[in-house]
């Protein structure tokens, strides 16, 4: 793990949106790193800011969105000279991002494959389009590569399929086409925004396995945004748990799933029924996420947190290092050395014990 190469570094990112109801602080200080060939997952409820963060990385924030402060540093090697380059996307102009970054370096797979494909164009044309636009490839070259990509994403009879329109394909096939488009310009980073939410479980498993296989072949870095912890467990190396525009817990996948520290992570893990759940009632996190249009004093999660301390209502907790780990961090006052010892709920503890046994840890 020593010579991991960092290709994306986000520091202290703040994003707000101007709306009729005043300013909404959607992202309130996000830090994370992405290394080459690794997969990170961002989990959280809807409205926690997962999608906004990735949109900022892609440079496609809605027009009323403003990056207040922070940096998104991106590292790449020039195609011709092989020179190492590092740029802050926040400081780049829109058309510059369009030209150098988006599509070529970072590509995105969206949630719903029906709305992200153009219904009036054949899928072949849609896969060829970015290559012709970005790399000025000839039609023949682009066509050959498009067929290759279709085969890569597991579509049989690729040449015949080139002439199909999106409505002639099933949901799983369409998502494969979207992935092929994303891969057409050989990006280093692939952002998958809920890539399987609109798909069935059987197809979901296949698509995730496909993304994993392509990642291995092409040495891609992948960012997953999802609220499905089963998906996270399958694909991610590192997990960031987001709540109300902040990352509240971060760590390796095993640290988050087998040793969660933040009460919100406890809630998320408890709310998901696994196949052995036979409790009378599923655990739910009480209350609703805070309205980010208002100033938040203290810990944003405190009103929903049964373990909240007095200080949570006044001062926002910083990121504490979890003892004994370099990667595991948690933003909760419970981690402070003077805090009372609080254990995770019993039912969750039992479940984690059982999971550990199954995993042979």
């Amino acid at each position, binding site marked *: 793990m020593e010579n991991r190469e960092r290709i994306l570094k986000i520091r202290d990112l703040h994003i707000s949106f101007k709306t009729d109801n005043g300013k909404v602080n959607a992202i309130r200080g996000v830090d994370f790193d992405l290394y080459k060939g690794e997969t990170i997952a961002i989990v959280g*409820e*809807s409205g926690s800011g997962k999608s906004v963060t990735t949109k900022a990385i892609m440079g496609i924030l809605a027009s009323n969105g403003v990056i207040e402060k922070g940096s998104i540093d991106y590292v790449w090697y020039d195609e011709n000279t092989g020179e190492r380059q590092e740029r802050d996307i926040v400081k780049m102009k829109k058309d510059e991002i369009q030209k150098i970054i988006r599509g070529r370096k970072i590509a995105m797979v969206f949630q719903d494959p029906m709305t992200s494909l153009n219904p009036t164009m054949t899928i072949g044309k849609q896969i060829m389009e970015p290559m012709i636009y970005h790399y000025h490839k000839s039609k023949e070259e682009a066509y050959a590569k498009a067929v290759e990509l279709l085969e890569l994403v597991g579509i049989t009879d690729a040449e015949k399929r080139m002439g199909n329109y999106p409505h002639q394909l*099933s*949901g799983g096939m369409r998502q494969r086409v979207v992935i092929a488009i994303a891969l057409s310009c050989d990006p280093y980073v692939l952002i998958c925004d809920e890539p399987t939410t609109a*798909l*069935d*479980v*059987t*197809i*979901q*498993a*296949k698509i995730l*396995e496909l993304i994993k296989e392509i990642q291995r072949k092409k040495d891609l870095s992948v960012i997953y945004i999802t*609220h*499905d*912890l*089963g*998906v*996270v*467990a*399958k694909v*991610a190396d590192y997990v960031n748990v987001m709540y109300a525009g902040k990352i509240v817990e971060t760590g390796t*996948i*095993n640290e988050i*799933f*087998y040793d969660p520290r933040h009460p919100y992570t406890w*809630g*998320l*893990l408890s*709310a*998901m*029924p*696994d*196949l052995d*759940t036979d409790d009378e*009632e*599923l*655990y*739910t*996190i009480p209350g*609703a996420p805070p309205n980010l249009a208002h100033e938040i004093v203290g810990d944003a999660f405190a009103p929903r947190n049964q373990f909240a301390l007095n200080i949570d209502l006044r001062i926002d907790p910083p990121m504490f290092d979890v003892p004994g780990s370099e990667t595991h961090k948690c933003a909760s006052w419970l981690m402070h050395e003077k805090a009372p010892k609080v254990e995770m709920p019993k039912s969750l503890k039992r479940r984690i014990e059982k*999971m550990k046994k*199954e*995993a*042979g*840890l």
Partner: protein
Amino acid sequence: MSTEPILKVTDLKQHFKINRKFTVKAVDGVSFEVYPGQTYGLVGESGSGKSTTGRSIIRLYKPTSGSIVFNGEEISGKMSAKKIKLLRTKMQMIFQDPMACLNPRMKVMDIIAEGLDIHHLYSTKEEREQKVYDILNLVGLSKEHASRYPHQFSGGQRQRIGIARALIMDPDLIIADEAISALDVSIQAQVVNLMKHIQKEYGSAILFIAHDLSMVKYISDYIGVLHLGHLVETGTTEEIFTNPIHPYTKSLLSAIPSPNPVVEKQRTSLSYDYATSGLDYEAGTQHKISDTHYVLATDEDLKKFLAE
């Protein structure tokens, strides 16, 4: 089983004629029973006919053939006014997308009371209001919410309004068509808890249509697995999960992601393809495994399944 089923579906077929040469057989011979106070889960991939089955039962479509008996009344054929009244009051549906199924130009009060209005189920305005307030309270919303519009609510709250609208008719059967698929994990849990609670309180039966097997396992007493319009396997939740017989059921079960990273990363799902499996659903008949457990197969296929 001593009690009579609240809903008995026998050999239901729902075909859609696309043109002279081509007919889509969305549901092709499905039979099952739902008992009062219990939950029957229908699972299957998209295009397997699970939603069509639900919609045929509540008569949004006219079934091609087969029989549907609800509360002792045959409702698959031509319906008398009395039967329509029974069906529209005692059977209710909860839809998938909580935004699309609520009229954005109506207040919550009127959305929930619409069924009461149509069937004249109150005598005074106060009674109507009281009924709506009671039901709002039951689904975890408050009185003040009645004067708001759907767009002022979050996804989970909107789904509660959808549930309240179904419940106010005091239904014997609720058809929940992917009622939680569009919601976040923590909100799914809230809605599922609510449905379980309501079932206990009112004793209504639920036909729960979904593709998320872990939720279906949690909420259902019986499960039916649909594939390409055929009910390939049905049984108690226990039987389906511990002793799946049909290869399609097995592949569905193997695809459920588990929130255990070490185990999950090593797991590969079984794949199942009807075209190459050599099975013929048309030729199969329902074989009894136990009193409640049935599998669709031909005699030879069943031997093969059991040998595996």
